């Protein structure tokens, strides 16, 4: 499962394909709706989403760690992703 930790406006602008938007500010509301039921306890969750000014990925990873063990942060921002020639959804 791929989680985009950035605010919704930035997610709407551009994100990784198949990513689920789960910003820290709305975590308690969105987690049960988007992940809670389907996610198995041992399933891997990859979290990404940081800017020069905020490490949204680390904030959300901390919140997810309270519920799951297998959490990994993909460092780097969208620019890094695109610079490597990888696809991004609009």
């Amino acid at each position, binding site marked *: 499962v791929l989680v985009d930790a950035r*605010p919704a*406006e*930035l997610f*709407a*602008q551009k994100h990784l394909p198949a990513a689920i938007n789960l910003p820290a*500010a709305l975590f308690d509301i969105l987690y049960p709706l988007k992940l809670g039921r389907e996610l198995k306890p041992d399933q891997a969750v990859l979290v990404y989403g940081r*800017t*020069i*000014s*905020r*490490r949204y990925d680390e904030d959300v990873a901390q919140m997810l760690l309270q519920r799951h063990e297998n959490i990994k942060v993909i460092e780097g921002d969208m620019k890094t992703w695109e610079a490597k020639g990888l696809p991004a959804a609009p």
Partner: protein
Amino acid sequence: MKAVQVLKRCLSHPWMGLLLRVYVGGVFVYASMYKINYPGEFAETIASYQLLPYWAVNLTALIMPWLELASGVLLVLGVRTKSAAALVGGMLLLFSLVILVTLLRGIPIGCGCFTSVEEPLGWGTLWRDLLWLAMALQVYFFPSALQLEDQVLRSLSEAE
């Protein structure tokens, strides 16, 4: 020619200085209120501009509103007016540049100028800030009436 002279006289009149001084100072005092009460939300606003490094965001969110309040109060009262106008002008110039860069980068965020929930950042926000910058320049370059500092100094010299 006459109209230009009248306009010049109006713009440099001490009462115009008073009006603009109190208005711009009031705007800054008002702008600081929400930010001082909710520094966490203001930090998120600063972060959304994606210009400051992450370690400077929270510190800026703590310091800037107090700077706005202090310079705003000094302007309204007319104490150290030139310094306060320079401070306010400098902040407005900075805000304008930040807004311009953000608009050019196409980052879809709210202004966060007064509260954290506001209309999206647009070219209107930039023009508004530039207008306030022009007002701050007027206050800096021309005298304004009813400055508390002048009144205090005058009464002190009279007492002597």
